[in-house]
């Protein structure tokens, strides 16, 4: 479990300013039905076909809590080491808007279900921790459709009542890169444990970034909240623009006003929606239609026992069971599929570190180049394990291994052994054959031999290279070294 302590911060200053970022993320929970009604939550249905009497706020309707949404909140809390509140309260957030059918949103205000916790991730090779303040359950609103209705707006209430988990961080991030890395890690966690489909285009994972700047050591600056960042790319662009904008304002002698802003991907700029002066008074109060949400310890225990192994735990296991460096373990647990692929290769080949090197190296390069996921890898975990086993037992060299991988990727051959056989890549372990090649190379390169004898080590390497070439890469480099040194050393 992560300890929620302040991360020692080595801030990257931007024009002498420290950047401070906090996040609020709305993760849509992957329940079949809505948070307080039995209507379906599927995306993309015809407008208003997935809204029942409760979602429409018809007179006399009342909310009934969906236990599935609560379980997902518990799972999240366990995944990030939070306190699961044994008793939390639903509150009403009152405001008028046409796509808010009841005139209030049911949310959690004073006592949320998930409290504290932290998200750990790597920013490059540096380990970072972002502390969480809370995660609370709430319902989504509907959608206002401003196109297609000349002079009027349409309302689609299919989304009204969709369960959301709003995840709030401390202002622990110090750069846009760190913010994006946090968001990616959070995205990984919610999709890994399966509480959210993570689809950012469909709005299943929406981030709001609270951004401020200050001189190092100064109190926190006034923040502006960038709403609804729905891609990692826009997230970085929006935050970078906002940082520049705020610094310029301050440099020009203008104070930052607290505001909510939107990012326009077309212009690459952020633009204020509303300022604090016209901020609404939401008149929060406990919802009298919903009793306190009581979560008994055995409910938490049951959820814990049914949860998949968490990335954090799995990474620790990779370190302790396979002896991987922490960096490798963290990288390999970026997705469930990647981690599963690694484990299969490591177990079948018995070579964990080699497996890690190959997956983080050759496999990742090929996947990135072809923009495919590990699930679609052209080289199966079984094939890669076979290949690694042949390198480990000295049958082929590393460089020959790359040729084998290339061939397997291109579908030339069933497995490593077949490719080695077909391409004749087996290392020459027969000293007689190698002796002959060495003798030929030594005879053909008297200059190099002379230079080596005169003390130039480079000449020795040149000879080794010639020998390897003559062997078509099949010679064992160590063996070549030994034999050559014996002959001319």
């Amino acid at each position: 479990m992560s300890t929620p302590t302040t991360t020692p911060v080595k801030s990257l200053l931007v024009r002498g300013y420290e950047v401070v970022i906090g996040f609020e993320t709305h993760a849509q929970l992957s329940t079949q039905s809505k948070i307080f009604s039995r209507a379906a939550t599927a995306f993309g249905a015809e407008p208003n076909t997935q809204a029942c009497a409760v979602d429409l706020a018809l007179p006399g309707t009342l909310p009934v809590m969906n236990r599935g949404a609560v379980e997902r909140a518990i799972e999240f809390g366990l995944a990030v080491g939070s306190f699961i509140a044994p008793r939390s309260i639903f509150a009403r957030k009152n405001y008028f808007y046409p796509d808010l059918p009841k005139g209030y949103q049911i949310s959690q205000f004073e006592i949320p279900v998930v409290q504290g916790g932290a998200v750990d991730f790597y920013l490059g090779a540096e380990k970072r921790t972002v502390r969480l303040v809370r995660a609370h359950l709430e319902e989504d609103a509907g959608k206002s459709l401003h196109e297609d209705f000349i002079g009027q707006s349409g309302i689609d209430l299919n989304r009204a009542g969709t369960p959301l988990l709003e995840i709030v961080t401390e202002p622990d991030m110090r750069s846009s890169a760190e913010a994006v890395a946090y968001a990616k890690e959070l995205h990984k966690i919610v999709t890994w444990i399966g509480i959210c489909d993570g689809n950012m285009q469909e709005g299943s994972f929406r981030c709001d970034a609270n951004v401020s700047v200050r001189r190092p050591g100064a109190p926190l600056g006034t923040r502006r909240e960038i709403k609804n960042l729905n891609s990692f790319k826009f997230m970085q662009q929006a935050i970078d623009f906002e940082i520049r904008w705020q610094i310029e304002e301050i440099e020009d002698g203008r104070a930052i006003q607290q505001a909510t802003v939107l990012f326009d991907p077309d212009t690459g700029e952020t633009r204020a929606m509303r300022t604090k002066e016209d901020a609404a008074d939401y008149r929060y109060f406990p919802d009298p239609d919903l009793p306190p949400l009581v979560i008994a310890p055995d409910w938490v225990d049951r959820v814990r026992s049914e949860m998949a192994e968490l990335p954090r735990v799995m990474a620790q296991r990779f370190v302790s069971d396979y002896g991987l460096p922490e960096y490798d373990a963290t990288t390999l647990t970026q997705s469930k599929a990647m981690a599963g692929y690694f484990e299969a290769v490591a177990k079948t080949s018995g070579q964990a570190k080699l497996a890690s090197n190959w997956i983080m190296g050759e496999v990742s390069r090929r996947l990135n180049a072809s923009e495919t996921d590990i699930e679609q890898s052209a080289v199966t975990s079984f094939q890669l394990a076979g290949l690694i086993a042949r390198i480990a037992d000295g049958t082929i060299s590393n460089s020959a291994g790359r040729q084998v991988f290339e061939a397997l990727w291109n579908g030339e051959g069933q497995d490593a052994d077949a490719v080695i056989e077909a391409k004749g890549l087996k290392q020459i372990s027969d000293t007689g054959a190698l002796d002959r090649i060495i003798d030929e190379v030594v005879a053909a390169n008297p200059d190099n031999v002379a230079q080596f004898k005169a003390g130039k080590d480079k000449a020795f390497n040149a000879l080794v290279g010639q020998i390897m070439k003559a062997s078509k890469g099949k010679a064992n480099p160590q063996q070549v070294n030994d034999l050559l040194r014996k002959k001319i050393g």
Partner: protein
Amino acid sequence: MQTVHHAPHDLGVAKLVAALRQGELSAVETAQHFLKRAQAQADLGAFLALDEEVTIAQARAADARLAAGTAGPLEGVPLAHKDIFVTRDFPTTAGSKMLKGYRSPFDATVVQKLAAAGMVTLGKLNCDEFAMGSSNENSAFHPALNPWDRTRVPGGSSGGSAVAVAARLAPAVTGTDTGGSIRQPASFCGITGIKPTYGRASRYGMVAFASSLDQAGPMARSAEDCALLLSSMCGPDPDRDSTSLDRCEEDFTRSLNDSLEGLRIGVPSEFFGTGLADDVRAAVEACLKVYEELGAKLVPISLPRTELSIPVYYIIAPAEASSNLSRFDGVKFGHRADEYTDLVDMYRKTRAEGFGDEVKRRIMIGTYVLSHGYYDAYYLQAQKIRRMIADDFQQAFRDCDLIAGPVAPTVAWKLGGHGNDPLADYLADIFTLPASLAGLPGMSVPAGFGEGGMPVGLQLIGNYFSEARLLNAAHRLQQATDFHSRKPEGL
């Protein structure tokens, strides 16, 4: 062969059940009889909606079940619902212009349960707008008149409900009680009504006024009839109302005839102070004497925060109401202003036109007490005192089994009698508010007559889930007195 000596409207629920079951009456002729009376007494303003076709169709179905031997416990007995309950077969207005012509796609749980028991719906009953009021004068459509004196109010908010029973337009009705809306009109009209423990009857399908207080209950002439209805109204509704309690359905008639020997009746001194009118005091005290004669012991008790229940209630109820009524915004259903310039203008005009004065007043009070900077001082403080009021009752119930006192400080006042003084209405709620705030069951039982020959009600308050005990105490009083079986002249 035994002949029916009484007209159907003089039979209570219990006798109607028997007559229908024995075939002395059909459900159709019973329904027709009551519909005719309702039409003849339209001047009383009890009903907001009648639909003979719907009623007769329901009665025919009841007759078929009676004939087939599949009758429910209340098969064929007519009833009418307060217009706060949503119904598929009748429009639902909640007494407001905002919902004029609104038709719900579903029935309230209470409506569904009483229909399942075999009851036939006569129509929908007048009430104060969104159940806010104690005279029925806040109905957006027309007032309801007290059948004992048509120049007086019937009480509220379930005024139409009380009028219908008192004038024998329905043998039994439903009401809702948030701060006394069943008990006070029952008292003013000389009938019996019970508000069960909060959470016993599902709130699903009740147009919400104050969610933490609203509770449905039956109103009828006798405690026995109330017990019959209540047995079919209550029960858990976990899939539709999260505040409905997980208590099994109960036969509330089971202990009606139990002896009252040794029953300790608490008499709170705060209910008999200077604010209590002499005629009401005399009638209530006479009833307490009857109880002593029946073997009960009177125990002096104190409910020290009785007066505080007025400010506490008039903070909490409007706070919840201001939020509950936000959905009436002209966007999805109900009234929408004809002309407006933009969204905010549409909201303003729609709500200005759709809501009456009292509703607007409470929305404003509620909005104020929940606002930033006032929430702690008003709403939170009120919640704290609310808990203390509930604790006071628990303290009192150590010394007594039931609490008895007046329902209201006076008998029914004249129409327009409180003029434009809402505070006069609020203050008149003083004796019913404490039990509402504590979520306790309470009832009003006819206790005699006071000034101008107007009925007086005795309030009985019990601890949580003591409805059967309350009904037993009321029933025994009604066996020793005849106040509940008297009827207004000319009816």
